[in-house]
C-alpha cells in the first residue's frame, strides 16, 4: 500500500539545522564576527547595500554572514528587512559635487583641477596571489597621507565641458513633482529617467556589466569616455516638516560615474557630448560605470538614435536587472511542479496516441 510522504515540517526544520551547521563550518576555528565582515569584506558589504537598496553597513555585514557569502541572498535578506521599516520621508538631493573624496579619476584629461586621486584601488595591483595574507600577520602600516593640491571640492569634468558649451544640458527636472518611488509603486514603462536610474542603481552588477560591455562591442555603441569616477562621502540632509530647514543626518559612501558620450547632433541640436550617469552605494566602480553605460544606452530614443540593441531596450533592461526578482523566478523552478508536469504527460501521451 502506497503512503504519501509526510513530515514536511520535520524535514524543513532538519534542513534549517543543517544549514546552520554548514554556515558555521569547522567549530574548531574562531567564528567570523559581523564586525570583521564589515571591516574586511567591505566591497561585499557595499554590493549588498546597493542591491539590497539599504545603506546600512552593519545590517549588510550581518546579511553577508547569514547568507554564507551568497551576495544575492544577502541583498534579498536586506530588502526583506528594509520593506518592514517605517518611512519617515525623503532626503534632499545629495550633493555629490561636495563629496569628501577618497578617489577621483578622469580619463578625458591628463591633468585637471583637483588632480587624479587614485585612492584605495586595485587598478595597478599585479594580480599575484599574496600568500602573506594567508598567514595571520601584523596590520599593514598606515598609507601616507597627501594634502589636496587645492582646498575645497574639485570641479566636475562635465562642468568644464559645459563652460565651452560642449556638454548637453540635462533636461530640467520638475522640482515640484516628487520623483517616482520604485519601492512603493510598481515599475511601468515607458519610465522616466529618474525611475530608470532607481532601477539600475539596485540592479544586478553582473547583468549591468554584461549589458554595458555589449554596448562597447557594438550593440548600441555610444562612444563612452569616463569623464569622471569619484568615490567618497556625501552628506545626507533632510528637512523635517516641524523644523522647515535642512539638517545633516550623516554621511554615506558613494561611487559616482559620469560617462561622457559623443552625440552627432540633430536638426535642432549642434554636435555635443551627452552624459551617462551611474551612482551606487559604497565603493563599486564596476557597477557605477556599467550603470552609466546602460543609462546612456537607454537615452537612445530621447536622442533620436537607432535602437534595437539589448541595452537600449527599456522594458528588457528594467524588467530583468533585479537579481532578487530574477533569482526568485529562476530558482522557483525547483519547487514541486508535478501537477503541471502530470497534465503535460497525459497531454503528450494523448497526442502520441492520436498520431499512431
Amino acid at each position, binding site marked *: *500500500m*502506497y503512503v*504519501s*510522504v*509526510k*513530515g*514536511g*515540517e520535520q*524535514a*524543513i526544520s532538519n534542513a534549517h539545522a543543517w544549514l546552520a551547521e554548514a554556515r558555521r563550518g569547522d567549530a574548531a576555528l574562531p567564528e567570523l564576527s559581523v564586525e570583521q565582515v564589515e571591516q574586511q569584506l567591505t566591497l561585499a558589504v557595499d554590493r549588498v547595500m546597493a542591491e539590497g537598496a539599504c545603506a546600512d553597513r552593519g545590517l549588510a555585514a550581518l546579511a553577508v554572514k547569514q547568507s554564507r557569502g551568497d551576495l544575492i541572498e544577502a541583498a*534579498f535578506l536586506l*530588502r*526583506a528587512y*528594509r*520593506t*518592514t521599516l*517605517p518611512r519617515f520621508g525623503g532626503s534632499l538631493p545629495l550633493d555629490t559635487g561636495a563629496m569628501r573624496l577618497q578617489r577621483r579619476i578622469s580619463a578625458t584629461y591628463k591633468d585637471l583641477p583637483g588632480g587624479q586621486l587614485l585612492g584605495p584601488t586595485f587598478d595597478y595591483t599585479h594580480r599575484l596571489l599574496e600568500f602573506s595574507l594567508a598567514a595571520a600577520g601584523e596590520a599593514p602600516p598606515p598609507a601616507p597621507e597627501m594634502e589636496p593640491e587645492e582646498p575645497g571640492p574639485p570641479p566636475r569634468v562635465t562642468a568644464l565641458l559645459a563652460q565651452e558649451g560642449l556638454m548637453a544640458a540635462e533636461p530640467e527636472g520638475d522640482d515640484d513633482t516628487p520623483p517616482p518611488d520604485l*519601492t*512603493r*509603486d*510598481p*515599475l*511601468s*514603462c*515607458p519610465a522616466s529617467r529618474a525611475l530608470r536610474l532607481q532601477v539600475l542603481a539596485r540592479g544586478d552588477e553582473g547583468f549591468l556589466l554584461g549589458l554595458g560591455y555589449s554596448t562597447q562591442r557594438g550593440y548600441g555603441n555610444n562612444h563612452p569616455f569616463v569623464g569622471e569616477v569619484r568615490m567618497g562621502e556625501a552628506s545626507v540632509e533632510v528637512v523635517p516638516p516641524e523644523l522647515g530647514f535642512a539638517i545633516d543626518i550623516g554621511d554615506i559612501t558613494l561611487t559616482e560615474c559620469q560617462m561622457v558620450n559623443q552625440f552627432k547632433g540633430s536638426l535642432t541640436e549642434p554636435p555635443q557630448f551627452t552624459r551617462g550617469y551611474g551612482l551606487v552605494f559604497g565603493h563599486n566602480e564596476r557597477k557605477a560605470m556599467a550603470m552609466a553605460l546602460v543609462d546612456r544606452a537607454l537615452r537612445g530614443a530621447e536622442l533620436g538614435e537607432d535602437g534595437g540593441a539589448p541595452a537600449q531596450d527599456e*522594458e528588457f533592461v528594467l*524588467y530583468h536587472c533585479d537579481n*532578487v*526578482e530574477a*533569482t*526568485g*523566478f*529562476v*530558482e*522557483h*523552478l525547483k*519547487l*514541486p*511542479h*508535478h*501537477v*503541471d508536469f*502530470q*497534465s*503535460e*504527460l*497525459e*497531454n503528450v501521451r*494523448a*497526442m502520441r496516441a*492520436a*498520431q499512431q
Partner: protein
Amino acid sequence: MTYSYAFLDEATKRMIRRAILKAVAIPGHQVPFGAREMPLPYGWGTGGIQVTASIIGRSDVLKVIDQGADDTTNAVSIRRFFARTAGVATTTHTAEASIIQTRHRIPERVLQPGQIIVYQVPMPEPLSRLEPRVVESTKLHALADYGLMQVRLYEDIARHGRSASAYNHPVMVNGRYLMSPSPIPAFDNPKMDRMPALQLFGAGREKRIYAVPPYTSVKSLDFEDHPFDPIRAPHPCAICGATDSYLDEIVTDDVGGRMFVCSDTDHCEERAP
C-alpha cells in the same frame, strides 16, 4: 523587534486592499500594485501571501495547499508563516477553511459561498508567451484584442489535434478579459466557472492582483469544433478509488511501475476507507 500582524504594515495592507477591491470590480483585469519584498523568495508565493496577509483576520481559518497537498514543504512553510505572524487557526479540511491559499490546484470539493481562494500566480499575463512586452499586452487588454491567442490556439489544434496547453490554459472572464488561471491543470479550469467562492490572484514579482467574484462566468478558450477538453490520467485513485479526481503519478520502481493517487490529499483522506 516585533513584526506587524500578518507581517505587512498597515499602509501596505491598505494599498493591497484598495487593489483587491478594484480587481473585484473589474473581473479578470490585472491591477498593478506596489508588491513588497517578502521574507520568502519571489516564486514561492509572495503575491498570494501578500493577498492573504491583507485579508486575514482573527476569526479566519486558513488552509494552504501546494500541488493539491497540505503537506508539501512550501505549503507547510506558508501555513507556519501565518500561524506565527497572524496567530490564525489552520486546517487541512477544505470544508472548514474560510481562506484557502493555493499553488497549482483547486480543491476537488466544491467551494462554498463565503469562502475565499487565493491563488499564487507566477506569470499573471496570459499573453506573455506571445507578447512579452508589458506595454503591448496592456494595450491588447485595453482593446480586448485577443486574436493573437486565438491564432496560437488554432495552430496548436491544427498541428497536434488538441490544445497543447495542458495547464495554465487561458480563460475569458465575464466575456471581457483574457486571464491566466495560474498554472492549474486544465482539469481544474471548469471549477472556476460560476464558482460560489471569491477567487483572488496574487502575483508578487510581477506586481499584479486580479480577481473573479462569485458566480462569474469563466470560459476556457476553445473553438466550437474543438471544445475545451481537459484530460486526467485514465485511472482510479489507488487509495480512495476516486475516478473523478485529479491524480498524481507516482513512480514505484525503475521498470515502468506506476500508481495513481489523488493530488488533493484532503479529498482523498475523506474518501479513503
